[in-house]
């Protein structure tokens, strides 16, 4: 079913597609993170804003990716096969997911901790950076993991309109009736997604040592 010798002959192409796949899926994660932290902070500070932002995020999330991939060129004036369409669409999804995560995570920071920090003389900005944000990290990482894995898988849909990194292997494989391409494509996408997931998990553990310490103490009690 798989023509193994096809792989070494096409390593260069596969490498390029892999690289494009990473660019298409990960740049949106970074951009979305930068956008959603302040948005989530605003949503947590103002109930009125939250009442707008959270449902709006939910609404955006109900729109299928193929829809955004197709509509964005009409809205932005980009070419239909421009990578920007994919990146902007995935950024929108990631923001939609993370805003909610950040707002919930900030809301879950114990009010006593915030009050204690205020009482010790933290100003709001400093308090956010050094107290609230770190405590929100575990939820943020969970959101990032979901978004990253989803993005890596979703990029392949972009192949349907001409930009999809490894997704091109899927569509070409179908058109050429060549299962090797499809299987290689699927496997690489899954491996990439799981790898990214594992890296984020490790990153989260590394930057929040207190979470596991606490869990250990609890399970002993």
């Amino acid at each position, binding site marked *: 079913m798989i023509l193994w010798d096809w792989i070494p002959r096409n390593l260069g192409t596969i490498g390029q597609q892999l690289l494009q796949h990473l660019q298409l899926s990960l740049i949106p994660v970074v951009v979305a993170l930068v956008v959603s932290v302040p948005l989530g902070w605003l949503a947590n500070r103002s109930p009125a804003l939250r009442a707008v932002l959270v449902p709006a995020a939910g609404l955006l999330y109900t729109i299928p990716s193929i829809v955004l991939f197709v*509509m964005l060129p009409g809205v932005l004036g980009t070419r239909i096969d421009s990578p920007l369409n994919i990146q902007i669409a995935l950024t929108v999804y990631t923001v939609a997911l993370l805003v909610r995560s950040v707002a919930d995570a900030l809301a879950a920071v114990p009010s006593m901790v915030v009050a204690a920090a205020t009482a010790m003389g933290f100003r709001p900005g400093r308090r956010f950076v050094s107290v609230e944000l770190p405590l929100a990290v575990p939820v943020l990482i969970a959101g990032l993991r979901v978004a990253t894995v*989803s993005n890596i898988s979703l990029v392949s849909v972009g192949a*349907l309109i001409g930009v999809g990194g490894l997704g091109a292997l899927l569509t070409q494989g179908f058109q050429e009736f060549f299962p090797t391409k499809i*299987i290689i494509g699927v496997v690489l*996408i899954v491996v990439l*997604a799981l790898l990214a997931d594992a890296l984020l998990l490790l990153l989260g553990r590394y930057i929040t040592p207190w979470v596991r310490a606490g869990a250990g103490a609890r399970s002993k009690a």
Partner: protein
Amino acid sequence: MNILNQLVSWFADPAHWSGSGGVPIRLLEHLYYSGLALLIGLVVALPIGLAVGHTGKGSFLIVGLANGLRALPELGVLILLVLFMGIGLIPVVIALSILAIPPLLAGAYAGIRNVDPAVVDAARGVGMREQQVLFKVELPNALPLILGGLRSAALQVIATAAVASFVSFGGFGRYIFDGLRIRDYPQMAAGALLVAALALAVEGVLALVQRSVVSPGLRASGGARRSPTADVASTPEPAQPDDPSPAPELAGVKR
């Protein structure tokens, strides 16, 4: 604004509303594939999710499955199945069902797992049998998350059914891929809009269903209907299953 005019004239063209390629037929096709796949998904996932949630046995399987399947590209699943089974309704519906299962499974599992253990303990303690505990107490309390899973699954299936048109199949996706082939962007955009409208409509209907079948008692704690006396240490700690990730993150939702 050019594209807007083109869209309006596309939708205004009566030719697009009749015949086998018209919007009503495409809508029925889209609903048919999605509904069938969702039904199969429910039949498979709901019993397993409820059983695993109730007994707690096999939890790792659900979490692993939900996470693993989220990484699986839906286009790949679809193409592989069609490639090996031939173009037809069955491979497409199977592919869609496979995508519907993780959110349904995770919703049912997390829904049952998240029921306050004290409530389940009380149900047994007053003399309910295991079936009664599951169907009279756990299931009604799990409904919000189960229906959440259903909503995610429905959206996932509707989105992927649009993609399924790539392998020469009906539904609204047909407009997107036909338009792409003949460089007819307005047709593509119209198809995309129809898919979005369908997704939003289904989401709205399911939200209404959720409102009508979930006990008001599970909504009352939301705040608005809470009585002023209820704030004295009344709510027990929310039940935490071993796996802390909330349902949507478990559910393998992606668009």
